C-alpha cells in the first residue's frame, strides 16, 4: 500500500459565513479543538495512511496557513523526496486569469503542471476544512477491492449546512445512484468531499473540465460524468465536522466536550499532529474552577471556566467567568469579566468587568486582536 497514493488538499476556500473567523485566514487554518488548525486533521489522516507526498492548493489569504504548516516537519512531511508542497496559483500566471478559484476543477487546472509530475498511481482529493479521523488506508483498500473509478467518502450523519454540501443516494451495493449538489435540505449521505481515483482518470477529468470550462468537481464530474463512471461510496462511521458557519463552528466545537467524540477524533492509533509550540503546562491557580472543559497548554487560569474550549496560552484572571465559550490562542480575560456563548479569536483582550453574551444559536464572535 505504501506510496501508491498521493494526497491533494484543497486549502483555498474562505467561507464568508464564518464571518470574523475567516477574515484573517482561509477556512483550513481556522483553529479548532483547542490546539489544532482544521487542516491538521486531513494532513494527519494522509500521513497516518503512509502517504508521503501531499500537495496543498492555496490561492489567497494563506499567510496563516503557511505559518502553520511550515516545511511540514511536524507531520513528518519535510522530505528529501516528495513531502509537503505548497501550491500557490502559479499555473495562472501565463493564462492571465484573475480572481479566486471558482471550484476544485479550476484549482486543479491551476496546478496542472504539478499534477503531471505526481509519481503515484492513485490520488486522494480532500478538503482541508473537515475535522475527522478518517482511515484513508481503509478507503484506499476498498477503492481497489471494488474496482471503482471514484470512491467518495460520505457520512450517514449530516452535520453540514445543506446549501453548501453534496449528498449521495447510495444503493445497497455501495454504488452512488444519485448526487444532489447544494440542495435545500439534506438528502441521504452527506459527502465529506474526499475522493480517491487513479492519477490517469484525474488527469483526463481535469483536461475535460478545462476544455469545457467547468470549474466545479461536483458539477463536472459527479453530475455530468456520473453515469459513465463507477462511483462508489465509502460510508465513514466516525465523527466528522465541517466548518461552514459561525454557528456550525460553535456547535462542532462544543461536541468535543463529549468523551465519545474525542475518543473517535483523537484516536491514539492515528494521532492528529500539529505544529509544536513548546508551550509550558497550564497552571490552575488557587480558587480556580474548571469544569467540563477542554484546555490546551500554556494557559493560566485563576478564574472560573465551564463548558468551554481554551486554546494555547489563554489567561483567565481572578473573578473572571467563562461559560460555554471558545477562547482562541492568547486571549486574555481580565478580572471580573463575564463571557457566555462567545468565541474570541486569537489575542483578544476582554477588559476587567466587561460582560459579553451571545446565544447558542448565534454565538458572539470577536475578531482577532480586538480589545473589548
Amino acid at each position: 500500500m505504501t506510496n501508491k497514493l498521493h494526497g491533494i488538499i484543497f486549502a483555498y476556500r474562505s467561507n464568508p459565513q464564518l464571518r470574523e473567523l475567516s477574515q484573517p485566514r482561509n477556512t483550513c487554518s481556522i483553529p479548532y479543538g483547542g490546539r489544532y488548525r482544521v487542516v491538521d486533521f486531513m494532513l494527519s489522516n494522509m500521513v497516518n495512511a503512509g502517504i508521503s507526498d501531499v500537495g496543498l492548493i492555496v490561492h489567497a489569504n494563506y499567510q496563516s496557513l503557511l505559518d502553520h504548516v511550515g516545511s511540514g516537519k511536524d507531520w513528518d512531511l519535510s522530505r528529501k523526496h516528495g513531502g509537503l508542497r505548497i501550491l500557490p496559483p502559479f499555473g495562472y500566471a501565463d493564462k492571465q486569469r484573475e480572481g479566486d478559484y471558482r471550484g476544485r476543477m479550476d484549482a486543479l487546472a491551476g496546478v496542472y503542471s504539478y499534477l503531471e509530475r505526481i509519481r503515484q498511481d492513485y490520488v486522494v482529493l480532500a478538503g482541508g476544512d473537515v475535522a475527522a479521523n478518517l482511515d484513508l488506508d481503509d478507503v484506499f483498500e476498498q477503492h481497489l477491492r471494488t474496482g471503482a473509478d471514484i470512491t467518495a467518502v460520505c457520512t450517514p450523519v449530516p452535520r453540514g449546512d445543506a446549501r453548501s454540501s453534496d449528498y449521495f443516494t447510495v444503493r445497497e451495493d455501495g454504488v452512488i445512484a444519485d448526487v444532489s449538489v447544494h440542495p435545500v435540505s439534506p438528502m441521504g449521505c452527506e459527502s465529506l468531499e474526499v475522493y480517491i481515483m487513479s492519477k490517469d482518470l484525474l488527469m483526463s477529468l481535469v483536461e475535460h473540465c478545462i476544455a469545457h470550462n467547468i470549474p466545479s468537481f461536483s458539477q463536472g464530474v459527479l453530475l455530468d460524468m456520473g453515469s459513465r463512471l463507477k462511483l462508489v461510496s465509502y460510508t465513514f462511521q466516525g465523527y466528522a465536522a465541517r466548518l461552514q458557519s459561525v454557528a456550525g463552528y460553535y456547535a462542532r466545537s462544543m461536541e468535543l466536550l463529549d468523551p465519545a467524540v474525542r475518543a473517535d477524533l483523537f484516536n491514539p492509533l492515528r494521532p492528529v499532529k500539529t505544529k509544536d509550540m513548546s508551550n509550558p503546562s497550564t497552571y490552575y491557580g488557587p480558587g480556580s474552577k474548571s469544569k467540563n472543559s477542554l484546555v490546551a497548554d500554556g494557559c493560566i487560569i485563576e478564574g472560573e471556566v465551564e463548558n468551554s474550549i481554551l486554546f494555547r496560552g489563554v489567561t483567565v484572571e481572578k473573578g473572571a467567568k467563562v461559560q460555554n465559550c471558545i477562547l482562541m490562542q492568547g486571549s486574555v480575560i481580565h478580572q471580573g469579566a463575564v463571557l457566555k456563548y462567545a468565541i474570541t479569536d486569537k489575542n483578544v483582550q476582554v477588559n476587567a468587568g466587561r460582560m459579553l453574551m451571545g446565544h447558542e444559536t448565534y454565538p458572539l464572535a470577536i475578531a482577532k486582536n480586538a480589545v473589548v
Partner: protein
Amino acid sequence: MKKECVAMLLAGGQGSRLKALTSKVAKPAVPFGGKYRIIDFPLSNCVNSGIDTVGVLTQYQPLELNGYIGNGQPWDLDRSDGGVHILPPYVKEGDKGTWYKGTANAIYQNIGFISLYDPDYVLILSGDHIYKMDYEQMLEHHKAMNAACTISVMEVPMEEAPRFGIMNVDQDDMIYEFEEKPKKPKSNLASMGIYIFNWKQLREYLIADEADEKSANDFGKNIIPAMLANNERMAAYRFSGYWKDVGTIDSLWDANMDMLSVHSGIDPYDTEWPIFARTPTRPPHFTGPDAVVNHSLMTGGCVVDGEVENSVLFHSVTVEKGAKVRYSILMPGATVKEGADVEYAIVAENAIIGAGAQVGAPPAADADPEEWGIAVVAEGIKVGDNAVVPAKAMVTRNVKGGAAK
C-alpha cells in the same frame, strides 16, 4: 567549522539516590515539571545562550535519553554545522577504550570530538540541576578575568555549606582554595558544577591527569586541585537565580512543587528564556464535570474528573471521579482510579493506582522527620484496589489489592 565555545554535558550518571525512578533511565532523562526532563534545562540554556554545539556524554541506561535527544530538533540543535551529538564511550584501536571512569576521563575520551570544532573555550555541564543561566555572560566574565577556568558559584546558607564543594575567593572573586564538603567552611560560595575552561589548557590537564594512574579522573577531585596547585587563574562567577539539585527523591519532589509558583523560581512562561522539550502531540487536557483543580499544573492528554490540588501532572494522566491527588507528581500516563487517594507521592510513568487505594500520607505535626517521606510508585507498577502504600515507601513491585503493605 571553528566554534568559540563547545558545551559538554555529562549525562552518564545513574542518579542512584533517585532509586526506582532511575532504574531504567539515566537521571537527566527523569521527567520534571510537567512537560520537561531534567536535561531540558541545561540544553535550553545552551541554545538560549547562543551555544549551538553540544556533546551529550551518555553511559548509564542511554536508550531513553538517546531517543529523547534524537536529532536535537526540539531545541533547534539539528544543525548541519554543530548541533547536538550523543557521545557514548567506544572501543578504540587494539581493543583499548573503557567506560567513562570519571567526569574528566569522559571529556578526555572525547578530545577528538571537541577538536573537530577547534574551540577557544569548553563549557562543562551536568544533567542534574534545574536552573536558568546565561552561559554567555559567564563566558564574558571568564574572558574579562583572563581566567584559565571559571566556576559558577552561588551563596548557600553557612550552616549548609558543609554539604557542598566550597570555593574560597579573594577580593576579586578569584579562587585560591577549593574545599570539598569542609567541616569548617571559610566561605559559603558553593560550586554549581558548571565550568568554563580555555580548551588548550584543559586539554593538557586532561592528558596529564589520564597519565596519572592514581587519579580518580574527576574534575572536582583532580583537575581543579591540579590547576590551583599550578597557580592558574581560577575565577568564581556568582549566580543568584533559582538553582536546585534534584538528586534525591525529596529534592526532586521539592523542585517540582516550586514549579507551581509559576512566576517565581523557574518561570516557564517567560518567552525570553524558554525551556524547550520534546513532547508528544496530545489533545488538550479535559477537566470533567466533577473536577476540582487548584494550584496545579496540567498538560496534554490528561483527563481529570477528581480532585487535584498542589500537584504536577505530566501528559496523558487520568484522575477518575472521586479520586484525590494532593502534593503529588504524576508522571506521563499514570492513572489514579476512582476513589483513590494520592498524597505526597511520586507516581512514575504508566503506573496505575487502583480504586480506593491510598498512596502516601501527609506529614503529621509530631512525625519523626526520619520516618516520614515522599512515597514513590515506580514505572508501570500496579497498586491494587484498596491497597495502602505508606509514606516514604518505594514501590517497585505490583501491590495486591485490599491488603496493607
